[in-house]
Each structure stands twice: as C-alpha cells, then as structure tokens.
C-alpha cells in the first residue's frame, strides 16, 4: 500500500505548492488585516509540509504486500465507460434536450454496463425517462432543457 501513499503524497505536494504559489499572486494583507491570499497561502504551505511528511513515511516504511489497483480486472472498462457517458451527458444535455439524452444514457447503462437483455433495456429507459419527465418537469417544474424534438 505504500506505493499508493507515495503517488498520492506527490500529488498533494504538487497541489500544496501550486496553491501557495498562486496565492502569492493575490494580496496577502498582513496579520492585522488578512487579505484574500492569506488563508490560501497558509493552507498551501501546510498541505505541502504534511504531504512531504506522508511522502517520507511512505518511503521509509517497507512495502507491505502488493494490493492490486483494480478490484476486478475485467470490470474497469465499465467504470471508465460510465464516467465518459456521464461527461457526454453533461455536454449533450443543452443541445439535445433532456428526454433524448436521458433515453440514450439509460439504454447505454442498462444494456452495455448492466448487461440486461434488450427488452428490459428498451422498456426500462422509456419508463424511467417518462417518470423523471413527469416528476421533475411537470410536477416539480424544473427547467429541463428542451431539444430539437420539442420534448
């Protein structure tokens, strides 16, 4: 597990340095009147120090057994695909409208990720999309984006 600590401590060390460096560009103020850069500078420095401590600890302690990064090797494409699908959903929501994008996303999730059969993967998304449409758009009056089809 120490290898993971090594990687993550390097990441946070970098974060801490970046935070500290960019807060130096802001007005720091002084102790009697701290400016907007005061607390970020303090946080950045402290984060840097602590992640350096974590880094040293991860180097000094011997590796205690190797833990695989993926819990199940075969499943990781699904995780990645789901993440990508959510991002695409975010960007497509405005231009294509709620109903259409939601339908596509659900069919994808049911069929590709959930490995359901086709009848479930068509009926499920149709029902779910209509339900969410009624719940959010009609009942709760949320402004969901309308697509080229007018729904």
């Amino acid at each position, binding site marked *: 597990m120490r290898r993971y600590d090594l990687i993550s401590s390097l990441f946070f060390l970098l974060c801490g340095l970046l935070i500290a460096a960019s807060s130096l560009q802001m007005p720091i103020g002084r102790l*009697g009147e701290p400016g907007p850069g005061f607390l*970020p500078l303090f946080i950045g420095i402290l984060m840097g120090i602590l992640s350096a401590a974590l880094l040293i600890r991860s180097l000094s302690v011997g590796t205690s057994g190797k833990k695989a990064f993926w*819990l199940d090797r*075969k499943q990781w494409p699904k995780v990645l695909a789901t*993440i990508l699908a959510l*991002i695409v959903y975010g960007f497509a929501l405005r231009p294509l409208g709620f109903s259409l994008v939601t339908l596509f996303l659900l069919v994808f999730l049911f069929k590709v*990720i959930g490995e359901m059969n086709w009848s479930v993967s068509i009926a499920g998304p149709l029902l779910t999309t209509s339900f969410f449409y009624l719940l959010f758009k009609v009942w709760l009056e949320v402004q969901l*984006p309308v697509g080229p089809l007018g729904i």
Partner: protein
Amino acid sequence: MDILQNFFIGLAVVFEPAKLMFCFLGVLIGTLVGILPGLGPSAAISLLLPSTYHLDPTSAIIMLGGIYYGAMYGGSTTSILVNIPGESASVVTCLDGYQMAKQGRAGAALGISAFGSFFAGTLSVVGLMVVAPPLARFALKFGPPEYFALIFCGLSILIYLASASVLKAVIMALAGLFLGLIGTDIVTGYLRFTFGSVTLMDGVGMVPVVMGLFGIAEVLENLEKGLRRDIFKTSISQLFPNREDWKLSAGPMARGTVLGFFLGILPGGGALISSFTSYALEKRISRHPERFGKGAIEGVAGPEAANNSATGGAFIPLLTFGIPANVVMALVLGALLIHGIQPGPLLMRQHPHLFWGVVVSMYIGNIMLLVLNLPLIPLWVRILKIPYSLLFPLILLFCLIGVYSLNNNFAEIIVMVFFGVLGYLMKKFEYEAAPLVFALVLCPILENAFRQSLMMSYGDLTIFFTRPISLAFMLAGIVLFILPVFTSVRKKLLDRIPAEEQ
C-alpha cells in the same frame, strides 16, 4: 412551562396536512435509502435538495430531517437480514443482528432495533428541546474568535475519528478548505482560483461535491466489484421481542440513548461513532461478553438506540450555533440558506414555527417509522432483492438531474463527475471524504471568523487563547491532535467501517 408552550407551537405547525405528508415522505425515503446499501442519507438528501426550493422552509427541513433519522431505522434492517450495513451507522448491528437472524431470531432483532430506535429517537428529541434553548442563549456570547475555535475543534474531532490515517485526514481537511476558498472573496470581491470559469465564481457547490463523492463514487466502486447480492432466505416470524429480550435490552437501550445524544452533539461525531461506542461499552460492562458476536440482543439494542439518539443530538449545533455537526446537517444548512434563513442563536427567536415545527415533527416521524418498519418488513425485504443493474442507472440519473436543476447549469454536472472520479480514486488510495466535505462547508464561516478575529485584535494571534470559551475549544482541539499518537484503540474500533460518509 416554556417548553410545553413551544411544544404546542410545534404541534400546531406539524398537524397541517401538508407538513404531515412531508414528514411521512421524509421518513419513507429515509427508510428506503437506509435499506438500500450504497445509498446513504447524505446522497439522498443532496438528491432532494434542489426539489426543496419549491417548498416552504419548514416543510423542507421536516422532510430532510425525516430522511436522516429514517435512514437509521432502515439501515438496521439490511444489517440484520443480509449482513451488509444499509448505511454506515448500522455497521455494528451486523455483528450480532445477523447472528440472531441466522439463529432464526431475525424477528426479535428487527423488533428490538425498531423499538430501541423509537425509544432513543423520541428521548433525544426531548433532549433537543431541553438543551437547545439555553445553548442558543449561550451561543449569543460567541464572537468571531469563539466561532473560529469551535470550528477548529470540530475539525479536529473529525480528524481524530478518521479511521485510516490522521495525516491523510488532515490533508483531506486542507483540500476541503482550499475548495471552499474557490470563488469570489466575500470581503474584497477578489476572484480566487476560478481559472476564468463563471461557474467557479460562485464557489464550488456543496451539492455537486457531496453527490460526486458519495453518490457517483459509490456507484463506480460497485460497478467495479460487479455487485451481486445474496438473496435472503430466512423467514421472519414473531416481531415482538419476548420478556427475556426486553430485560436484557433495557439497560443497553438507556445507555445507548444517553451516549448517542451527547456524541451526536459533537461536531464530527454523529451516528456512526455513537453506535460503535455503545457496542464497545455494552461488551465491556456485560457479565457475559463472550455472547457478543454470537447473537447477543444487547449488541443490537444498544447501538441501534445510540445511532438514532445521535440524530436528535446532531441537530443541536446547527440550530443553536449555525454549525453543522456532520455532512447531513451541512446539507440541511444548505437547504436553510437557500430560503434565506441563517441558522444560529437567533433562529429560535426569529423563526419559532420553523424551529419547533421541525422538533415536533421528529416525534411524529419516529411514531411513523415504528409503524412503517414493523408491519412493512416483508415489503422492505422485497426491495432488497432489486438487482443492482436496475438500481444504479436510477441513482446516476437522480444525481445528474439533481445537480443540473440546482442552477440549470450543465457545468455543475461536470463538477460532480469530477468529484465522483476523485472520490473513487480516494477510496483506492485510502483517503476519507468526510473531512473534505466538512471543511468545504465550514470554510467560509471559518475564514470570516479568522479574519474578523485578527482585525479585532490588530493582528494579535493570542486572541484565540485569551478568551475563556475560545481557549477551551482551542485546547480541546489541540489535545485531540496530540492524542492519536498515544492511542491505537481508535483504529481498532474503526477498522471495520466501509467507505460511505461520516
């Protein structure tokens, strides 16, 4: 007599049909998310937060509160029947509850946990009514240094309770503080770390972060595991515990109630830690500690009472100081702020109907939960059988729409997915999300208090140590930072905790 009078104010509020309905809706949703593993009260509340815009504030808080304590009831059902905690505060219930179920005593275990929850939940509301008013008067004495010290103390409690590593928990808290700083500086209007993004000018929202870290990350992790749940086979008979059960459970219930209430008040404490402490306590003082882990009913009664009692306690810091004790309360704070209500010492005076309405609704909600949980257990068991491949698209969709509808801004979806991936990686690298969220929420209050204190003292940092209340909190916080070096008990206790929320 004051309390009684206030109680009647609350009763009048709650017995409007609409309020009763929202209370019922809350406890129903709460029970449901409590039962479903991988969906806890914080995810459920963040999903519903946007829809509370359309409600009046009292109904909104009544419903969100109902979800919180309702989840405590529901969580035990899953623990007892499937040996998977429905939500994190029911982890210890698995130990003896599942053993009881295996011995054919699932009914008694479910019964005692429902009655224990009811007993503790109700008493903790009484506690809330008694403690909150004097505490709010006390809170009026608080100036910026006291607030700073209080939040510092809360953060150190949370870090102290961190199960994996104190160092990592502090780093997470710092990361949370940093995220809380993003956006427009309230004092000077200066833009910090916005990278030219209009969305970030308003700061990083709590809802996308919580939904990402607790909702999306959880789904991603389950997808990777390829979750297949064991279907429960035992039949449930006789939900009423027998005389012997009652005799064994009375003490643990009473102790669990008191313990849970006070641990619930502590910022960063809450339901999870109180259920653990109650279990440890009962095992220690039991004359037959060897029975624990083999189906001892005390091991169900105590922790279940404690985690429900903690929910009542958890409302106290929010309603009196305006400081949330845990992530769920932070979301409730968010809901109040949406309606322009600033919780704090003056809440009780400025919005008595809201305050006492919410308090009284918790009595009613507990009664509803007792009725919902006992006779409807067969229904809940059926819900447990829904395959995950049908469930996860719905959870994801709720997250997506919930976040979008906050501000009708698609960029918030991207923020949420970012935190989903981050949360997923945090699980792999063994970092905890609770300190991050807590720090993110409290950052604006903390920074304000810090800057105002220093202006008051003309830059003299000793201001935090020369005022008695502030000094007490600072010392408590510092002790908690030093303590972990000397103790490893904490780690042993918390080793078994799964990754969901505080």
